[in-house]
């Protein structure tokens, strides 16, 4: 086995680090605290470097960046705590459109997505279908050359700043649930769409989107009628190479170490000197190294063109569950000051610790709950009999 990165990936890592040092300013980081986990300026700087287009597979006309380089980029951006959700969505949607979209979508959407001018929001989940995404009820009915869409989506995060939504609809209710789905890319300024904020316990703002007799032309359909599950699989395929979530903990660990070095406990000793604290920091650092192994492995598989699935579930499960554990450890060890909101009371990094504690629980839920991941691992890797 060879764990070394190819030289061009190492060079690229340096380039990304320099990019981060230059563009990931405090202002960018702070802008993400308002609840919108996207920063247009930073996003467009990434686009300007050609990294969005670079991430699109070369056989689709993008390219220039290997799967391993992409992994390096996403690792560095996560270690620095950069907002990258918009980046992931742009790359996934551009790739899916280039593979399976019509010319209208290719022309209208792809250039603007890859230049960082426009954003798409994912519209999969509904109030009654969370983990069971294929149970979507939002209806699309053909009416002449038009489609009429009625329904509701939940967790259409970034919809309030995006221009489009990648919408999963039901076009045939009379067949098994996976077989009656169709995807559209719907302009969010279409008549009949309403976007309502969904505020969360974490810092994120998400959205519920409502579709009331929304009329769009057939050119906005992507993939075959009733062939939506193919699009879903393609989107998941492209997400595999680019999805973040492997390194949620390092910004928290770094912040805590800084805090623990500067802050004394009630007995006057520095927090960093406490052996119990030190063991927990090491345990957290070990978990991060484990995440690194998982992340490099999926990058390697992607670079080999392997369609991996359960490996992604394991990565996601381990990274999010360990992060949730860390977020509890660190807020405890920070003491009462760990509770403070960002900017309160000069607590050096108190607000960051609180923010992670409130954010962490969602990471074991979105993008596939830990329970779903464990099901997939039990069935897919261990071959245990299906229970549901």
């Amino acid at each position, binding site marked *: 086995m060879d764990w070394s990165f190819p030289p061009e990936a190492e060079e690229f890592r340096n380039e990304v680090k320099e990019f981060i040092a230059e563009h990931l300013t405090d202002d960018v980081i702070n802008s993400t605290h308002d609840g919108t986990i996207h920063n247009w300026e930073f996003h467009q700087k990434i686009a300007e470097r050609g990294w969005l287009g670079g991430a699109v597979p070369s056989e689709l006309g993008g390219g220039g960046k290997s799967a391993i380089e992409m992994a390096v980029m996403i690792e560095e951006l996560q270690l620095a705590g950069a907002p990258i959700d918009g980046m992931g969505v742009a790359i996934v949607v551009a790739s899916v459109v280039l593979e399976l979209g019509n010319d209208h979508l290719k022309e209208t959407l792809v250039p603007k997505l890859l230049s960082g001018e426009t954003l798409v929001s994912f519209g999969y*989940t509904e109030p*009654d*279908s*969370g*983990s*069971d995404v294929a*149970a979507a009820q939002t209806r699309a009915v053909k009416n002449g050359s038009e489609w009429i869409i009625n329904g509701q989506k*939940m*967790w259409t995060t970034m919809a309030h700043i995006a221009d489009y939504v990648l919408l999963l609809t039901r076009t045939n209710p009379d067949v098994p649930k996976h077989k009656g789905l169709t995807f559209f890319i719907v302009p969010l300024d279409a008549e009949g769409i309403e976007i309502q904020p*969904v*505020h*969360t*316990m*974490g810092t994120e703002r*998400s959205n519920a989107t409502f579709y009331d007799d929304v009329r769009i032309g057939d050119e906005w359909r992507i993939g075959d009628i009733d062939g939506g599950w193919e699009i879903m699989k393609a989107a998941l395929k492209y997400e595999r190479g680019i999805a973040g979530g492997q390194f949620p903990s390092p910004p928290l660990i770094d912040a805590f170490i800084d805090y623990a070095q500067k802050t*004394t*406990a*009630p*007995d*006057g000793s520095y*927090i960093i000197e*406490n052996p*119990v*604290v030190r063991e927990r920091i090491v345990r957290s650092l070990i978990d991060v190294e484990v995440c690194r192994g998982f992340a490099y492995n999926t990058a390697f598989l992607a670079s080999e063109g392997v369609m991996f699935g359960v490996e992604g579930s394991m990565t996601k499960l381990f990274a999010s569950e360990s992060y*949730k554990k860390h977020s*509890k450890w660190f*807020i*405890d*060890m*920070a*003491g*009462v*000051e*760990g*509770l*403070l*909101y960002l900017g*309160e*009371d000069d607590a050096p990094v108190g607000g960051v610790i*609180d923010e992670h*504690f*409130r954010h962490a*629980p*969602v990471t*074991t*839920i*979105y993008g596939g*709950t*830990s*329970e779903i991941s*464990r*099901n997939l691992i039990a069935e897919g890797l261990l071959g245990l009999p299906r*229970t*549901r």
Partner: protein
Amino acid sequence: MYLRLSPDEESIKDIFDSFFDTECSIERVRSSEDSGFDADAWQRFVETGGPGMCLPEICGGGGADLTTAAIVADLLGRYVAPIPFIEHVVATRLIASLDQNNADLPQLATGELIASMALQPLSESTEIVPAGAVANRIIGFRGGEIIVIENANNASPLRNTANLPIARHSFDGGTVIASGDKARYWYQKARSEWQALMAVALTGLGRKAVDIGVTYAKERYQFGVLIGSFQGIQHGFASAITNIEGSHFLSSRAIAALQENANRGEQLAGMAFLFASEAALNAAATSLQYHGGYGFAEEYDVQLYYRRAKGWPLQLGDPGLEYQRIANLYLPKEGVH
């Protein structure tokens, strides 16, 4: 040995259950999220005699004991009520124990004045105090002395994870009300009472968090079945409620030990506090997880419980230090040379 509430205690519980149901409904909790304190609810609590209930009658109180306070603390946890009942009870009992003639006691007994205390001996020049943003009298312990700050109304609240009315206070210029062994004894006793009542409240909070999650799991369908029928989810809830039951018994024993002035009161209070802190967070986090995305949405109640499950006990500081303190009560500090 009788491990249920007595008929009298059941009556007290019913009264305060009605009180919290009306004055600390989840809508009222939400409407107090900015300040962490519902002044109207406190005013109504004053009218019930709640604030002074557990003060000696000679001080204008109701003469009830800590066991009665625990009944209220359990409900406080269930309702995540935004009133500083626990801090007020322990701080006023401390003042009453040291000085039955304290001039503030009549107003503390009615609840016109609110009292609280710093939960660690003071080392820094200032200290973050629970209920520090709403208390009129704040007790601290420094250098073997118990100090009271008498005009404590000037501190600005610090916004925080659990929407608690905490604030940072300086203790300069406070009045010394006890010193020496006596001060040490009574400060520690008050702190243990806070821990034991907090353990009870966290247990109530955790039990309600499980209730919320179980109710959701009995209503929510995914993959064509109730999610509550998935064994993975069942086992998570079963472990959570087992810890909450354990926490219930342990915190109840701690209250009883403090009430009886038993030797083990301080130990059991610390142990109950530490165990309840973990059990409550586990219960709330488990329940939140099984809500899926909705658990994270402000609109759903379980997140209120998750944040308080951590915020309430963390007012005492890093629990790791509390484990060391308990270790020092039990264990030899050195090897046998």
